[in-house]
């Protein structure tokens, strides 16, 4: 790290963080009506008896992230990476422990706010508003977003409903909308690396740009190469626990040994 000499300013502090999901009606065994009834009758007793299953996704994770760091999150599927990101963003309430942040961390992604039945044009506006941009900001960046997505390269597609797009085109537009905003603490989930080779290159470049503007970046990825390229520190999660936390090379070496690569 180049800025080792300057004072380290923490931007995100996780303190013994626990996240628990509750899933209704997932009791093992039959999902019959009588089972559901007995669940209601047993209301007073604990969650397990009522057929509410708890999934303990993050178990006591603590770390401090500093300004200027790019932190990779690795671990096998279901190890709690995405959940941890959402908890840092304050989108998932913590069961125990706390996350302290500098400003409002944002997750890169607007998929959920977009509607397939609306035109690309209206989705750009809706997505921008959902991310908290003002109408003026969106108007200003509208053309950039459309150009970046490349949607209009093959004709005037932006005025068609999004359900008529190919999956690649839709993914490109979604990324372009999501990446249009600048963030203090930025979190990127791997699922965003979509589109053809040309677009992937363009989006990698955009992510690097965002990194420069943001104070701290978190990146979830299964691609060790992209972690090496972008991150200087790695958190390794396994079964919701922080297994290792350190400089990229050190952690990745252990991780590769663990996954048997």
């Amino acid at each position, binding site marked *: 790290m180049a800025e080792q000499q300057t*004072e*380290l*300013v*923490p*931007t*995100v*502090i*996780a*303190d*013994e963080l626990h996240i628990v*999901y*509750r*899933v*209704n009606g997932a009791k093992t065994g039959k999902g019959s009506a009588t089972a559901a009834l007995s669940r209601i009758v047993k209301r007073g007793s604990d969650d397990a008896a009522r057929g509410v299953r708890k999934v303990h996704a993050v178990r006591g994770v*603590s*770390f*401090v992230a500093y300004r200027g760091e790019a932190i990779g999150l690795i671990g096998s599927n279901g190890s709690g990476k995405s959940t941890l990101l*959402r*908890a*840092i*963003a*304050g*989108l*998932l*309430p*913590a069961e125990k422990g*706390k*996350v*302290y*942040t*500098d400003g*409002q*961390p*944002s*997750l890169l*992604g*607007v*998929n*959920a*706010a977009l*509607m397939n*039945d*609306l035109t690309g044009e*209206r989705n750009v*506006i*809706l997505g921008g*508003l*959902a*991310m*908290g941009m*003002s*109408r003026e900001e969106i108007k200003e960046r509208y053309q950039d977003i459309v150009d970046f997505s490349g949607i209009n390269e093959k004709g005037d597609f932006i005025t068609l*409903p999004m359900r008529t797009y190919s999956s690649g085109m839709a993914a490109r537009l979604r990324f372009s909308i999501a990446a249009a905003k600048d963030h203090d603490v930025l979190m990127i989930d791997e699922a965003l690396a979509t589109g053809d080779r040309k677009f992937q290159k363009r989006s990698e470049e955009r992510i690097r740009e965002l990194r420069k503007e943001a104070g701290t970046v978190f990146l979830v990825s299964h691609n060790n190469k992209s972690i090496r390229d972008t991150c200087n*520190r790695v958190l390794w999660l396994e079964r919701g626990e922080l297994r*290792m*936390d*350190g*400089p990229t090379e*050190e952690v990745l070496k252990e991780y590769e040994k663990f996954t048997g690569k």
Partner: protein
Amino acid sequence: MSAPPSPHEGLPARQLAAKYGLSVSGARPGLGEYVRQLWGRRHFILAFSQAKLTAQYSQAKLGQLWQVVTPLLNAAVYFFIFGVILEADRGMPREVYIPFLVTGVFVFTFTQSSVMAGVRAISGNLGLVRALHFPRASLPISFSLQQLQQLLFSMVVLFAVSAGFGSYPDLSWLLIVPVLALQFLFNTGLALIMARAGSKTPDLAQLMPFVMRTWMYASGVMFSIPIMLEGKPQWVANVLQWNPAAIFMDLMRFALIDGYGSENLPDHVWAAAGGWAALFAVGGFVYFWKAEERYGRG
């Protein structure tokens, strides 16, 4: 474990956070701050409601025409059942009864659909709640706003029906504006309450249609409460007449229909309408805000 050397070794997280002015992520803001944030999102709330409204009929061939056709068909069905077959128009001449019925159906549907949308406002949009940051009250408010816009389309039909049965536009039609405003406040408050309840117990989405239907039949949508309940104890009629749905329906009928005079309204009806609206809007908002940091848990 090989955490990088930290200059803050040993300092507890809470003190470290305080030292650098970090705040708890996802903590519930104060009520004033919450209102301010919500106001900052007003464009999103409006755009989201309009988007939902448009998306509703975007696959249909007739497209947005359904906004008007759907309430028209609704009114026709109710007229056929209650006006022609059951003859529920007791005590009212036909040119009053038909606008009376159509007004009732539309005004009640406004409340009914706001409640139903409210129940699913959080539980049906978990993806959105878990992906982006915004005051969660945006969702139920946006859904009631969508229903208000839907009602405005219905009002076109309603105006046509009223005029068709001899109630022409006059000054009293201006009263529609405050009635709609008060009902919108009431509906939004109710939607906020249902949104919180529905996020904890999604089963309410299955239960509410029955509750709403009971409420509809008890509110005099298709009959006049005082006439139907003649001979029953007075307090029964009072309770039914003072319920918010009946009050908003009666006020709207009073505003629109020439032959429906103030003798049909309970005493202090405007105070009651304002009271219900204020009670639910403020109460519902505070109730919803109290659980703000907990929405989004599975």
